């Protein structure tokens, strides 16, 4: 081990470009996780990124929808005291409030479900526990979204 010539892995000669040349090329080091023909195009997918972005986009919209909802239901015009079947019927007579409530239902449920999915992933350590908690979460979420949607679309002010 005398000079740079004998240390092929030497750093100095590589950096100043004097050791390797066209006739003596540096060895190719294979990437630790090389992409082959069998490797899928994307190994992870973009789901988590999409979920992260959805939380922020839906969050901004929900700030407007939910705070407006609270203002109407709990503050204006007598607050909670005025709420009753007649009040609901009056509001859902307008497509504007139907769309408002439908959008709020979907966005809030999906926002909350994804938040709880994160919580389950963080704290439930056993794979089986995670599976069951998320199964319960998704079942309850789908049920509640469908029920709420059905109620908004089939509301009948003259039910009795």
């Amino acid at each position, binding site marked *: 081990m005398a000079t740079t010539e004998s240390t092929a892995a030497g750093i100095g000669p590589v950096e100043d470009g004097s050791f390797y040349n066209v006739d003596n090329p540096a060895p190719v080091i294979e990437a630790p996780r090389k992409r082959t023909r069998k490797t899928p195009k994307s190994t992870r997918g973009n789901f988590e990124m999409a979920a992260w972005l959805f939380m*922020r986009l839906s*969050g*901004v919209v*929900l*700030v407007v929808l*939910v*705070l407006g909802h*609270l203002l109407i239901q*709990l*503050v204006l015009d*007598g*607050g*909670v*005291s005025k*709420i*009753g*079947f*007649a009040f*609901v*019927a009056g509001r859902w007579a307008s497509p504007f409030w139907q769309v408002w409530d439908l959008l709020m*239902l979907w966005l*809030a*449920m999906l926002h*909350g*479900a994804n*938040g*709880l999915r994160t*919580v389950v992933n963080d704290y439930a350590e056993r794979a089986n526990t995670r599976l069951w908690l998320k199964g319960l979460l998704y079942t*309850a979420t789908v049920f*509640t979204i469908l*029920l*709420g949607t*059905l*109620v908004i679309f*089939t*509301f*009948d002010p003259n*039910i*009795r």
Partner: protein
Amino acid sequence: MPAGTLYRGREGMWSWVAHRVTGVLIFFFLFVHVLDTALVRVSPEDYDKVVATYKTPIVALLEYGLVAAILFHALNGLRVIAVDFWSKGPRYQKQMLWSVVGLWLVLMLGAIYPVLGHAARELFGS
């Protein structure tokens, strides 16, 4: 345990904790709220009967708590978005948290009369 090794967090950690706790609470309320509203498909009487319990003083206090949770989650959520998307967001995250807390306090003071007023009138007479 040696002294001084327990991470107690600061503004960043505690706002994260509060965001998580309020988020879970709001989500559980949302389930109940969709179910109670679904009673309008059953009958006006059943709906009004359940909503009548929402007008009692105890539930008024719960509603005030719900408003507190939603307002914090909304304002702090906007702060999280600013931290993520605004180039100077991470640098000003503490200042933004104290702005959130200040605005939250003002809004909560403003919500006392509208949300709790009817309960006070019922308890202490008008």
